[in-house]
């Protein structure tokens, strides 16, 4: 009898170890809610592992489900870009929520008359694992993902090509499409690794993504707080991929963005802590595209001509597309790939092929477009009209300029060159990231361009113009033979006579408005006979009717 007892005890001990060996999958995970579980949220003494979810008999529903559904109405995910019809959680998702919505006691199971004790814990403690009844900040679940959806969205894999470990359930995306509650061989019970967003791209097939720097960069974080990758264990841009900006649960904003403030999603890396381009410093300057000034206004579905005044990084950049590809004016560079715009005729384009098309979204016919800083004889602040190639004169943004004689141009510039808006409008300083992010100079100009009357001429004061137009040539009177007299002698700045963008053909003509002539009426007034006009009289010849600095030209001919 004694012997038999010892045998039984030895047997039980052996069985115990063998069962440990065989239960390595769930038993070492936080879903082992039994007293043997590795987590902190677990039963006080219950040893069964499966019981928290399954019972062999009298189950609430398949699969032998041992819990009651949350009788809750969930606030569902919704966004302006969602094509799917998202319903109240059902299927496996509802089962997950019977713990993860935080409303049902963790130990409350159908097969027991009283709830299994979790010590001091009753329902899911607050934190990341408690999704609450608010599902707006979680990746949507319980919606049909069929080929019609893939087609409507345009940037989803066809469901037929979705293969295990990622699965749809009765054609629907459920929590279990991404999570396997029994196994934590990856992290967070994911069915596949989230490294490089492998899991995300099994469904999401974003246009441009394959050649985006946000997909390929191996840059790391320099360790300065805050951690841009606060919800993943990955340490490079490429391994974080989608999750550098998106957070599948408890997100900061719609579309599962990390942060509610749109620009924070970019600046968490573009602040010197990860990306080589520190945009944050530029945006701290006085004159800037004030992305921090707006929250919740931008919407990806908004009209190309922006209706409500705002600016966000994503108005000019597409995070899914951006890369370091070079281009020549006016073609968009890699940083501006995949952004919609407005073309020279005011028509919508998507994507923009030329950089200026992006600028025209706000700086052409939007109702709130910024005004001009100079009061001119011909007023125009629709930049698209100012650069129209049909204009009597314009800086060569859309096409090469109309004037074949510009002797001041510094090589490599020629009269057939084109320039970007961002050649003049960009952050000032040396070794700063390109683009009109922020400048110490008004109008976000890349260099100084003094517009105050009676300025003493210097290379620095008109640095902007002198970048392309030789100071020696201008002051040497190579074209207009009175340049030196006006600029040096009178202290008149370039901006008094010239309108740097151009003069619309709807308002000016090639006689009176060649050579970007459009007077600043704050400084220039009509002549004694009441005329304010420039007449082009052939190469390097012309005639002015005006009064300026006390001088009456009525006319002055050269």
């Amino acid at each position, binding site marked *: 009898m004694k012997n038999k007892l010892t045998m039984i005890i030895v*047997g039980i001990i*052996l*069985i*115990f170890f*063998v*069962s*440990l060996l*065989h*239960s390595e*999958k*769930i*038993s070492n995970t936080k879903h082992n809610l*039994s007293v*043997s579980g590795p987590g902190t949220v677990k039963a006080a003494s219950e*040893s*069964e*592992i*499966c*019981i928290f979810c*399954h019972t*062999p*008999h*009298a*189950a*609430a*529903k*398949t*699969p*032998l489900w041992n819990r009651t559904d949350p009788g809750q109405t969930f606030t569902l995910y919704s966004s302006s870009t969602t094509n799917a019809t998202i319903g109240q959680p059902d299927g496996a998702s509802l089962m997950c929520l019977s713990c993860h919505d935080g409303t049902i006691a963790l130990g409350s199971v159908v097969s027991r008359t009283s709830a299994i004790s979790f010590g001091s814990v009753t329902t899911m403690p607050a934190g990341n694992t408690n999704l609450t009844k608010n599902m707006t900040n979680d990746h949507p679940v319980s919606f049909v993902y069929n080929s019609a959806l893939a087609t409507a969205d345009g940037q989803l894999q066809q469901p037929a090509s979705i293969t295990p470990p990622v699965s749809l*359930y*009765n054609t629907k995306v459920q929590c279990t499409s991404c999570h396997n509650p*029994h*196994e934590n061989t990856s992290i967070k019970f994911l069915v596949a690794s989230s490294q490089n967003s492998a899991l995300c791209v099994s469904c999401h097939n974003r246009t441009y993504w394959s050649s985006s720097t946000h997909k390929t960069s191996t840059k790391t974080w320099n360790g300065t707080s805050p951690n841009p990758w606060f919800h993943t264990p990955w340490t490079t841009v490429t391994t974080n991929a989608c999750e550098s900006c998106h957070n599948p649960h408890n997100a900061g904003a719609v579309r599962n963005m990390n942060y509610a403030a749109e620009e924070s999603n970019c600046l968490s890396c573009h602040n010197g802590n990860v990306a080589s381009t520190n945009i944050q410093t530029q945006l701290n300057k006085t004159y800037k595209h004030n992305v921090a000034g707006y929250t919740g206004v931008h919407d990806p579905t908004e009209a190309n001509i922006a209706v409500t005044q705002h600016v966000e990084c994503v108005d000019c950049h597409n995070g899914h597309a951006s890369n370091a590809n070079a281009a020549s004016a006016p073609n968009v560079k890699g940083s501006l790939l995949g952004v919609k715009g407005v073309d020279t005729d005011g028509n919508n384009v998507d994507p923009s092929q030329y950089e200026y098309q992006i600028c025209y979204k706000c700086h052409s016919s939007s109702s709130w477009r910024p005004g001009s800083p100079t009061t001119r004889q011909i007023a125009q602040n629709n930049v698209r009209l100012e650069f129209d190639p049909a204009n009597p004169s314009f800086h060569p943004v859309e096409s090469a300029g109309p004037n074949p004689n510009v002797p001041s141009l510094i090589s490599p510039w020629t009269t057939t060159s084109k320039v970007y808006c961002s050649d003049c409008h960009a952050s000032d300083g040396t070794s700063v990231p390109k683009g009109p992010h922020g400048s110490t100079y008004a109008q976000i100009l890349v260099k100084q361009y003094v517009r105050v009357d009676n300025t003493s001429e210097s290379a620095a004061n008109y640095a902007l113009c002198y970048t392309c137009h030789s100071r020696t040539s201008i002051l040497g009177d190579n074209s207009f033979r009175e340049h030196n007299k006006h600029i040096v002698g009178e202290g008149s700045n370039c901006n008094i006579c010239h309108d740097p963008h151009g003069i619309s053909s709807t308002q000016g003509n090639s006689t009176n408005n060649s050579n970007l002539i459009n007077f600043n009426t704050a400084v220039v007034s009509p002549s004694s006979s009441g005329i304010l006009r420039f007449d082009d009289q052939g190469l390097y010849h012309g005639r002015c009717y005006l009064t300026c600095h006390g001088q009456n030209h009525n006319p002055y001919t050269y």
Partner: protein
Amino acid sequence: MKLFKLFLVLSLVVFFTSSNSGLAVITGSAHDFSGQSWNTSGEICLPCHTPHNASATNKPLWNHAVTTASFTVYTNGTIQATIGQPDGSSKLCLSCHDGTVALENFGSTTTGTHFLTSADPEFLGTDLSNDHPVSFTYNTALSTSDGELYDPAVKEVGAAGSGTIQNRWLESDKMQCSSCHDVHNTPGIAKMLRKSNAASALCLTCHNK
């Protein structure tokens, strides 16, 4: 088969003559109906077995009326097995546990009045969709296609040498009530389980989760 019948008859005889029998654990268990009012025979084995005039179609020496109910079986999109109507010994269990056949309908009794009802925790009813599936083939192929089941031909039910799931717990390769339960309560474990389910050891013998 002849040998088996002989063995059963012998063990029934042995049980009646020796209280030290290995089957003695049934005594006092939930399946010891000797003290039940409806069991006028006062015997333990008789409600289920008889050494004589046993049902020819239902082994082993079956004495109890067998259910003719049609069952709703377990279904789920994720299940790999093909679940059929209960057969084998499961059908014998359900002859009391589905609540359609009276407990005392054994031997010559056909008009019993004691039924398990939905008020009893032991009542499974004819809707088995909320019960662990039974009466399906659980073989190496199923374990492969499911991906999270142990191979029953290889996996042992306990310590090394304890025998495989296939040999010890399956009936002709089929999963039955008796895969989890020992109707005679031989191991003496609660709910007449074949193996204690502490730490879910029973479930995790087959499920590789």
